[in-house]
């Protein structure tokens, strides 16, 4: 297909504009959520995310997710260059549908968890974690 010069320029402009949109990072998050849920509606409730309000250091932030009856729980660091943190898939011998780990947060951001429940429904929860940069501790 042959484009006119005008069309080519407009396409290039559009492409550039798309990459410069502030929503780019959120697009990654949306894509990951959509992949996990298959586009299904997401509700609330039955999923707990425990994370500190203030993380003295972004390298090692302890978090815990828990959703009784869930099949899997996805955790996203929505403000990181790559938001993916983990997807916990619970097997038949899981003693509880909960798990703890430590994640890296590049800056103050919302940490989000989405759970897939046994009946195929989805719920989500998110919490802001402030990440401080000490500034003097070397």
């Amino acid at each position, binding site marked *: 297909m042959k484009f006119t010069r005008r069309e080519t320029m407009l396409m290039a402009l559009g492409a550039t504009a798309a990459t410069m949109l502030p929503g780019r990072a959120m697009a990654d998050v949306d894509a990951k959520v959509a992949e996990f849920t298959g586009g299904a509606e997401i509700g609330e409730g039955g999923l707990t995310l425990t994370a500190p309000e203030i993380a003295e250091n972004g390298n*090692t932030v302890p978090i815990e997710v828990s959703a009784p009856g869930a099949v899997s729980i996805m955790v996203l660091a929505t403000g990181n260059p790559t938001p*993916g*943190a983990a997807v916990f898939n619970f097997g038949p*011998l*899981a003693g*509880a549908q909960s798990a703890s*780990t*430590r994640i*890296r947060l590049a800056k103050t951001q919302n940490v989000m968890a989405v759970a897939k429940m046994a009946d195929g429904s989805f719920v989500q929860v998110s919490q802001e974690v402030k990440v401080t940069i000490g500034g003097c501790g070397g």
Partner: protein
Amino acid sequence: MADNVKPKVRVPKTASAGEVITLKTLISHPMESGQRKDGDGNLIPRSIINRFTCDFNEQNVIDVTMEPAISTNPYFEFQAIVPETGAFTFTWYDDDGSVYTEVQEITVG
């Protein structure tokens, strides 16, 4: 290629049948996120543990897909039901193809 990758797990030695126990696991691994730059300004390529599984006597307890936001020396804490005497197998899968395993037995009495 990560060297000196050592797994470490904490599993109780005994349990009663059907008891829910807490497992803790750790593995030394830099979890190179792919975001850092070296001295010359080149991006250091991503090299992380991308999956962790825990099975008990061939049944799955947990299967974790891991991405770069997991901290260096990945740590997990989770619960397992222990139906009978047997062994827990912990497996970590590295981006570079290596697979690390740790096995711990538990007695149900």
